């Protein structure tokens, strides 16, 4: 992973792409979270729609399957009054062998303002952003690289819950509730773009992150992550304020990297027995979809401290915030020719 690659750090995503959280500053993340609070209020109204992006066209290009992220992005775009073009890859020319570049050229010719994109290849959104510099590109998950909006909605959810516990609001608390917060991320780190975005979001806001995975599921470059690797899941249970459980990604060949699912559950699953050894206030997150009984016990997933439903619900305001900031601000590249 590219933790230490020197890149420009931006203090606001206004008018910019969102491809990775690597180059997004603490100030920029707090701006996204605060704007999302305003959209959460919109989502609580009887009429959950504002005219902000009326006349803008957002294309949703999912080259890889997704339920919640796609629905969440499209709901977000529609609640901002944008028009949504949704490319069903299975029935598109991509199946006839059309290249990514040609697909994007077609989409651009239709006059779109933003592309929300998921792709199985790491770096695909970055590449697309170079093909179409005037179109905003939002990464909805690329290979094993990044899933920035998931990382953002996870910290947004944690901030909301902690702020309520401290009798304040997310917006008032800024990022102070993350100072010293102890976050343990466990499971299939090797294949997880969610883990990479989560680690960046949490550490940028000031939290301390530890990770835990079977040796075969640790990324090769984990020594360069700003985290501490924990050998034994059981030893770290008492330490954590937040446990981020990752999905075991069977579709990415994880099966051959663990002896058996049962073995994985015994060593790294958040079982009922392990959950009982967590502090009662420890929060549990999971990006979904859950493999109940594998990385997380079904009863654990239904606890009050398990925030999965809230994470899904928060996906919409976070994605409204990202689309709004990215599209509503003046695009730097365009300012000269306007």
């Amino acid at each position, binding site marked *: 992973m590219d933790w230490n690659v020197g890149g420009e750090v931006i203090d606001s995503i206004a008018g910019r792409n969102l491809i990775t959280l690597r180059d997004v500053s603490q100030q920029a993340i707090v701006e996204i979270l605060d704007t999302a609070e*305003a959209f959460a209020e919109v989502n609580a*109204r009887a009429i959950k729609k504002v*005219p902000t992006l009326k006349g803008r066209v957002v294309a949703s290009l999912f080259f890889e399957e997704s339920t919640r992220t796609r629905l969440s992005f499209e709901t977000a775009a529609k609640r901002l009054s944008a028009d949504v073009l949704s490319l069903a890859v299975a029935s598109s020319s991509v199946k006839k062998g059309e290249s990514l570049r040609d697909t994007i050229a077609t989409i651009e010719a239709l006059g779109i303002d933003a592309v929300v994109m998921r792709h199985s290849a790491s770096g695909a959104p970055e590449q697309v952003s170079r093909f179409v510099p005037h179109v905003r590109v939002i990464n909805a998950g690329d290979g094993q690289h990044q899933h920035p909006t998931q990382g953002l909605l996870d910290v947004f959810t944690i901030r909301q819950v902690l702020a309520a516990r401290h009798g304040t609001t997310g917006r008032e608390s800024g990022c102070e509730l993350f100072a010293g917060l102890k976050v343990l991320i466990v499971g299939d780190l090797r294949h997880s773009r969610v883990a990479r975005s989560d680690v960046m979001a949490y550490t940028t806001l000031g939290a301390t992150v530890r990770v835990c995975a079977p040796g075969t599921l640790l990324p090769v470059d984990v020594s360069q992550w700003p985290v501490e690797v924990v050998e034994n899941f059981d030893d770290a249970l008492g330490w954590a304020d937040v446990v981020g459980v990752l999905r075991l990604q069977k579709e990415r060949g994880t099966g051959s990297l663990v002896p058996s699912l049962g073995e994985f559950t015994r060593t790294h699953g958040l079982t009922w027995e392990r959950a009982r050894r967590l502090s009662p206030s420890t929060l549990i997150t999971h990006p979904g979809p859950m493999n109940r009984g594998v990385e997380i016990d079904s009863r654990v997933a239904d606890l009050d401290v398990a925030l999965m439903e809230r994470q899904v619900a928060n996906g919409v305001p976070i994605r409204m915030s990202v689309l709004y900031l990215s599209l509503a601000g003046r695009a730097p590249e365009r300012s000269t020719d306007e």
Partner: protein
Amino acid sequence: MAERERRHARPRGVIFVPRSQLLTEDEVERALRRMAHEVVERNDDPRTLVVIGLQTGGVPIAERLRDILADITGVDIEFGLLDVAFYRDDVSLHPVLESAETSISSDLTDRTVILVDDVLYTGRTIRAALNALSDWGRPRFVQLAVLVDRGHRELPIRPDFVGKNLPTSHDEAIDAGVDGVWIGTLVAK
């Protein structure tokens, strides 16, 4: 926040430099009391009133107006906050605006809304606010109260209650609050 310069510039980038004070705190208070009496005179039943302050400049003025109205009528007047950033017609032309809290708790259908802002200028903020209000139902009346009307309307919008009419030029700026009204200019930091 009706004031165009302040709305459209990123708050970090621009500061208001006052040239002279036009109204003192006492004069603002007297203007608000007169406006409150005009509101009561115009509207028979104070229980139908909802005072809504526009973020952010209109909020303290709306709070004061609501308190005076409650005083005069002896009725607890309902209060709300509205941020129109998501309803503006110029989001693409300007940098992103800071979003402030919106809080309107009840259905506004058949209510009388007193929309309150600090300065009325082009009228575009009010246009956005009228669109926004329709998302909370269909008010019986919407009446507009502003502390300062500085002219230069770009839309067919007029205030119902005005604290002070202040003819200004485009390159001047007005800063209006419950603690007084100043005229000055905006300069880049």
